[in-house]
C-alpha cells in the first residue's frame, strides 16, 4: 500500500481521478481517498499538518509497513512552472535538520534540495526549492518505514516570474495533471521496492493449532523462513499434526529442516 500525503484538495484531485480513489465515508479529522493500492490523505497546509496526517494513517494500521509519498507544489528560484523534482535533501528551515531520502531506483525526474519553511516564501533569489510540508512529512513517515520508501515529489508552481500570489487551484491541478506520467513511474518504483520488503511466512495456521509463547513465535517464524529457504515445497501442516504441544512441534520442524538438502546448485 502506498500512502500519499497532499496538502491541498487541488493537489490531490488529479490523483483521485487518475487512480479512481474513493472517498472514505466515515472519517474524522482528515479527508481520505483510496483504492486497493493507494491511500491518499489531504493533510492541510504546513509541516505539523503533514506529520499529523502521516501519524493518523499509520495509527490505523500500526503493524504494517507502507510506502510513503509527499506530493504537492513548491516554489523555486529559476525552475519553470510545471517542472518537477524529487527531493534528495530536505532541510527544515526552522531547526536546520536535514533528511536524505535514499533513491535506489532510476530517478524519474531531476532531484533537488528542498527547504521546508513555515511561512510562504516570496524571495526567489536562491537556487532552492521551497515548500511547507516535506520536513514534517519526512520526520514522521521515516519513523514508519526506511528512507528508500519515503519520497517527496514536487511540481514547481511559482518562481521569480510567476510569484506565489498567482498560484491558483486551477493552475495546481493543471500542472500536476501534466506530470501524471512521471508520478506513475515513481509510484511504480515505490510499489516495486515495497514488494521487496520481506513478508514473513504465514504462521497463523500454526497458531490455530498450538499455543506459542512470544519467544516461541519468533522461533517458529525463523524456522518457517528456513523451511522456505531450504525446501521447494510449501509446508504442510498435516505433517506435524501429531505434535502434542508447541515445544514438540518446534523440535520436529527443526529436525525436518535439517534433513532437507543443503545445496547451492539450484540457484
Amino acid at each position, binding site marked *: 500500500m502506498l500512502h500519499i500525503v497532499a496538502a491541498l484538495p487541488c493537489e490531490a484531485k488529479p490523483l483521485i481521478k487518475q487512480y479512481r480513489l474513493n472517498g472514505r465515508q466515515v472519517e474524522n479529522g482528515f479527508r481520505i481517498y483510496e483504492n486497493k493500492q493507494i491511500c491518499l490523505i489531504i493533510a492541510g497546509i504546513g509541516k505539523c499538518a503533514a506529520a499529523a496526517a502521516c501519524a493518523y494513517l499509520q495509527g490505523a494500521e500500526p503493524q504494517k509497513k507502507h510506502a510513503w509519498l509527499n506530493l504537492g507544489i513548491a516554489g523555486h528560484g529559476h525552475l519553470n512552472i510545471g517542472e518537477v523534482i524529487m527531493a534528495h*535533501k530536505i532541510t527544515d528551515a526552522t531547526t536546520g535538520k536535514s533528511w536524505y531520502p*535514499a533513491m535506489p531506483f532510476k530517478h524519474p525526474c531531476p532531484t533537488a534540495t528542498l527547504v521546508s519553511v513555515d511561512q510562504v516564501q516570496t524571495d526567489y533569489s536562491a537556487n532552492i526549492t521551497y515548500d511547507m510540508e516535506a520536513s514534517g512529512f519526512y520526520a514522521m513517515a*521515516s519513523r514508519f518505514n*526506511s*528512507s528508500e*520508501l519515503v519520497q517527496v515529489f514536487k511540481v514547481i508552481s511559482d518562481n521569480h516570474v510567476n510569484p506565489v500570489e498567482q498560484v491558483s487551484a486551477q493552475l495546481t491541478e493543471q500542472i500536476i495533471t501534466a506530470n501524471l506520467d512521471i508520478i506513475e513511474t515513481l509510484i511504480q518504483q515505490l510499489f516495486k521496492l515495497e514488494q521487496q520488503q520481506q513478508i514473513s511466512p504465514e504462521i497463523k495456521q500454526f497458531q490455530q493449532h498450538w499455543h506459542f509463547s512470544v519467544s516461541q513465535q519468533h522461533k517458529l517464524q525463523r524456522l518457517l523462513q528456513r523451511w522456505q529457504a531450504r525446501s521447494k515445497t510449501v509446508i504442510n501442516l498435516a505433517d506435524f499434526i501429531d505434535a502434542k504441544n508447541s515445544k514438540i512441534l518446534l523440535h520436529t520442524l527443526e529436525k525436518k*529442516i535439517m534433513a532437507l538438502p*543443503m*545445496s*547451492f546448485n539450484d540457484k
Partner: protein
Amino acid sequence: MIQTLYIEQAVFDHPRSVMIRKRFPCASVVTCERYGEVFNPKAQNFRLQKQRPSLILAEKFNKFVLEAPFSYNIGGQRNYYFSHMLNCIYDCRYCFLQGMYRSANYVLFVNYEDFDAAIEQTINESTQPAYFFSGYDCDSLAMEPVTGFIKHTLPIFKKFDNAYIELRTKSTQIRSLLEIDSMQNCIVAFSLSPDSLAVALEHKAPSLSKRLEALDKLQQAGWPIGLRFDPIIYCDNYQQIYGDFFEQVFSRINKNQLHSVSLGTFRMPQGFYRNIIKLYPEEKLFSGPLAESQMMVSYEAELEQQMLNFCRDKLLKLMPEEKLFVCHDDI
C-alpha cells in the same frame, strides 16, 4: 553507475572530490555536513539500497590505522588494517558489512595523505615487520579506477622493507598494478569460492574464472599472490566441491609466487547476523547448520572442525604448511 554523490561541504572542493565529480557528470550532487547524516540514520534498508548505492565523499579525522583482529594474519606479528572506503560494490551474502552498516552507500575518505602519515608512523614505531590489510571494510581494488587509492598508497610501501600490504579482492581491476613494477611486499590476495557457491552467494562479483585470469596475469607480472578461502560454506557435498575447487585453483598457481593461503569457515558476530537475517530471511546460507556461541554465529563446532580439517588436509597436499593460515572466529 553512481546516480547520487553526497559530498561533505568541507571536502567539496578537494581535488579528489572534483575529479570524482567529473567522473560522474550526470550524478545528482548533494552536500552534507558530515557523512554520518546520510550513512548512519536508522531508517535505512541495506538490501534496498544495495540495488543502486550512492557514493559519499568524506573526510576521516582519526583512527586511520587500527590493529587487526588476532587471527587476521598471514605470518606477521604486527597486523593492522585501514579503511579508506566503507562498503563494497559486490553483494556477497556472507559478508559482515551487510549486518554492520545500515546503509549500502559507499563512503570514500578523500584525505589519503592522512592515511599515508598514519601508515608511515605505524611502520616507524613497529619493532617487527608490520602487515597492513586494506580490504577489510571494502574490496581493495574494485573501485580503484574511481578512487586511485592503491596507486597513491603503494609508493609508501616501496620505501620500507619491513612493511607489507595485503590487497584483498575479488576484482579484476588490476590495470594499475600491471602498469607498475611488482613489489615483493605487496600481496594481492584473491578471495575465491567454488563456482557454484560464487554464483549463488557472491552477487555482482567477477566469476571464479575471471578472478583466476586476473590472478594469473598478476603472478606472471611478478606480484606475490595470496589465496583466501574464507568463508568456506557448508553444503551437502562440500568435500567434493571444495576438493575439486582446490585442485582447480592450484592448477593455475605458480608456487614460487604464492605468498600465503588463508582458510576460515563462515562466521559472523551475532548482532550482525541478526541484522542480516532480517534483510535476507529467505537466504539458504542462513538456513544451514549454524549455532550461536560466545556472541558469534558459526557452523556447529563439530561440523566446523570437520570442514576445516578436510580443507586443511586437502590444501596441504597442494602447498607447504608454513604458508597456510587458519582464521578463527574474531572479526
